[in-house]
């Protein structure tokens, strides 16, 4: 089964090279989507010289949701059987790709979500509360229970990647994907992953509030 890792990136020139190098050892191909970066992220990727890395660039910044959607379309176009999404800021361990794709290979799931909350982890209280709040809102709006709705580390079977229709451009994409999983009746599983440097990375409290408001407005308009 062809595994393609999709890495959306915005101004991550410091970390993208390391993430791509590690991911290339666990995936057959890498798709990097540069979402209008201006810090040389594109050059960091091109400078790697790794053969199976495909780079696509947005001319202007459109958000992680838009970059995710572009990456999934690119991966499907390259013949992916499994599409793995991971973050470009080093929050996720690319070495976990085999574990996160395992249930899909075995035919046990269509979507696998890497959850930071399934094992004991040193996650700041603010992030825990924020995540739980968004989990609750997602459960109320979309009817699917998940311990880490905002996790950017996910794997999709080809069928699931083709079925999911991403319309959200920015951070709300994680919750939208949960909604799509429920709507398309996809089989979903969670596997534990490590949260690396989470206090410095990821969404802020203001991002969380914005996501919550956007979720509610999108659900009812």
């Amino acid at each position: 089964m062809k595994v393609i890792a999709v890495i959306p990136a915005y101004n991550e020139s410091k970390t993208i090279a390391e993430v791509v190098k590690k991911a290339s050892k666990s995936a057959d191909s890498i798709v990097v989507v540069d979402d209008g970066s201006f810090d040389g992220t594109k050059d960091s990727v091109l400078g790697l010289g790794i053969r199976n890395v495909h780079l696509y660039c947005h001319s202007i910044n459109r958000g992680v949701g838009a970059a995710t959607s572009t990456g999934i379309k690119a991966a499907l176009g390259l013949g992916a059987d499994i599409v793995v999404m991971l973050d470009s800021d080093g929050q996720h361990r690319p070495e976990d790709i085999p574990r996160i794709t395992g249930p899909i290979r075995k035919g046990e799931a269509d979507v696998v979500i890497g959850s930071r909350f399934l094992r004991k982890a040193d996650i700041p209280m603010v992030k825990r509360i924020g995540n739980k709040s968004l989990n609750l809102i997602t459960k109320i709006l979309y009817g699917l229970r998940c311990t880490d709705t905002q996790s950017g580390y996910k794997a999709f079977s080809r069928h699931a990647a083709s079925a999911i229709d991403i319309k959200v451009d920015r951070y709300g994409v994680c919750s939208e994907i949960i909604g799509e999983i429920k709507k398309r009746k996809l089989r979903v599983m969670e596997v534990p992953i490590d949260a690396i440097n989470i206090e410095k990375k990821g969404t802020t409290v203001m991002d969380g509030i914005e996501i919550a408001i956007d979720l509610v407005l999108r659900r009812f308009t």
Partner: protein
Amino acid sequence: MVVLEFLGGLVLIGFLAMLINSLRKRGTDAYIISLIIIDIALLAIIIVPGSLEASLTSIGFARPFDAFISIIAAASFFLAIRSYIRLREVERNITKAVQKAALKSEVKK
């Protein structure tokens, strides 16, 4: 005061006619419909203040002006939601164009 009300009424009737004409040409438009509702409410306050006051009092408004403010508030809320939806559509179209251009040309060294 009667003269002022008369002139005000004429202006509002003229404005109403313009809005209805605009609606006929452009089809259903939330903004025009909202303006029509506000215009009719203002006309009603001017033309039939007495009967209007009695009807409005019976449904909970102390004065016609209170009803007018409530209508304005509801129309503003509706327009805000409508603007949000329109803006989202525009943002979506921009994203589609950017994605199409990106997927067409993979960046190679």
